């Protein structure tokens, strides 16, 4: 396995073409976008910023993790995003039909960093945080990693993305829902704790996680107790996605112990999970 980080492709703003836009749960869709000029530069963990309408309602784009890079005869020709239909922006996206031109900015953000020594991976996803998992897991498999566990928690059966949509073949899915309608009743930490107890997740493994702040906090504290490092794909409300509006800060503890604001879009969106500081955990040292 190589740890060589390729030079990230600079973002462009271009039109892609919607090839597919299909429901995979009652609330979740996957959109496939043809973008042969941009897709080859996309890296796991990166995101795109999609224009949902030309009418300014809403005005801002919607940032989405790259769910999958689509390959045609071995060459990347497009990409997919996975999204829940929640507000006016994702409603607009959900109404796009094949053939529609869609403007996107990308690729954006940093990419996963897998330690050369990592032989095994655990991916921990909550809710729509399942979005980037397929691309990340596929790239781990391409690096020769075979032992990949995906812990995935959703609200209920209606919100739980089917395993074959969520991850590539060959991953070990461990599912849970808040109400027990799919997999175990409970949270991702329950599965994660069990993995640790059974030595199926140990320091040195590669861990990728994506989900809401509450999940990040619980996973960070659990992994921290066992000295297990993880990489977190964060999301904040964004104005631009490429580092000019300064609208998407999050709090990160620096090596000297000071907490500083970093931009989710260009400093991340991937950060070491143990460095993230969430609302309610702030002490002095952050100037306003």
């Amino acid at each position: 396995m190589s740890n060589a980080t390729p030079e990230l492709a600079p973002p462009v703003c271009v039109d892609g073409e919607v090839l597919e836009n299909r429901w995979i749960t009652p609330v979740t869709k996957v959109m496939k976008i043809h973008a042969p000029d941009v897709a080859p530069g996309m890296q796991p963990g990166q995101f795109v910023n999609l224009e949902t309408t030309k009418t300014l309602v809403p005005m801002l784009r919607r940032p989405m993790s790259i769910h999958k890079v689509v390959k045609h005869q071995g060459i990347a020709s497009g990409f997919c995003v996975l999204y829940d239909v929640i507000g006016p922006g994702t409603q607009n996206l959900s109404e796009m039909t094949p053939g529609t031109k869609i403007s996107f900015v990308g690729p954006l953000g940093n990419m996963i960093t897998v330690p050369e020594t990592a032989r095994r991976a655990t991916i921990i996803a909550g809710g729509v945080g399942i979005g980037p998992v397929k691309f990340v897991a596929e790239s781990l498999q391409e690096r020769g990693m075979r032992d990949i566990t995906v812990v995935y928690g959703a609200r209920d059966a209606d919100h739980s993305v089917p395993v074959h949509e969520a991850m590539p073949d060959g991953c070990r899915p461990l599912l849970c829902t808040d109400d027990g309608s799919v997999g175990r009743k409970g949270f991702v930490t329950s599965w994660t704790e069990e993995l640790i107890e059974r030595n199926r997740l140990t320091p040195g493994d590669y861990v990728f996680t994506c989900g809401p702040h509450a999940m990040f906090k619980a996973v960070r504290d659990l992994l921290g107790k066992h000295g297990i490092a993880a990489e977190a794909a964060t999301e904040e409300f964004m104005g631009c996605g490429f580092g000019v509006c300064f609208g998407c800060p999050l709090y990160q503890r620096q090596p000297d112990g000071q907490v500083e604001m970093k931009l989710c879009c260009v400093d991340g969106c991937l950060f070491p999970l143990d460095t993230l500081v969430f609302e309610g955990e702030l002490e002095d040292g952050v100037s306003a």
Partner: protein
Amino acid sequence: MNATTTQAEAPPEPAVDLSVELGPLKLANPIGTGSGTYGKGVEFQSFYDVARLGCVVVKTITVEERAGNPPPRLAETAGGLLNSIGLQNPGVERYIAEVLPKLRTLGAPLVINIAGHTVEAFGELAAAFGAEEGIAALELNMSCPNVSGGLDYSTDPKVAHEVVARAKDVTDLPLIAKLSPNVTDIVPIGLACQEAGATAVSAINTYVGMAIDWRKRKPILGRGFGGLSGPCIKVLALRLVHRLYQALDIPVIGIGGIQTADDVMEYLVAGATAVQVGTANFYRPNCALEIVEALPGLIRELGATSVRDVVGTLEMPG
């Protein structure tokens, strides 16, 4: 898409002169970027050749480093964006050492936007940048609503005069005074800046506003309030630009909600000599260049052949 058209039948289109002058500052076209919406400019280099813009106005620099305001910093509103960024920047010393060398490679005239927390600080910043090579002009941010005291400099004509005069004392660079719309009457402020030696005024900065999450009974922004920008403020800005154009002898730079060449034409007709594209850079990152490319066609529609022919040609009723 289109069938091939026969070029031979079309009469040659007259060349359109896009160049404009802001006092001694000559720009190839009237399209600049709004401070705070264009980062350091280098972020746009992968979208298009930034050198094709009339000028680049960078994000505000202060004397000391500023971490910026606590999140949330943005709220999207109907046709607008409410922000409370808080002038996050590395401070003048690091900026000159680390950022300015990159800006000099952009190829477009560079306008440095500065904000002091005191009149003296404006002078300090103006002197520091005035001593540097490769800067076309300074824009004085006298009107940021998101820092303590930031609005005061352009709500009182006397203080506005002091800020411009202080900067004028220490540098020969052209000075653009950026005005706040959060005043009863913008004209006396503009006149005070003109009298103090400003080369131009830019209007407007953001409108102070508040977005509310009623379920939480709380403002959405971390600091409670912020500055409103975007297409929803264009008609408000147009009126102020027109008033300034009528009252002032120095050029007016129009800012507020510009996202198309049509928007720019409205500002030019209202009396703006140049414009800045702001919030649209966030959601249509190619748009400033698209405007530069579309502008000649719209100018020709008026039977004009230059930007100068269009500026201030508004016909008011009565």
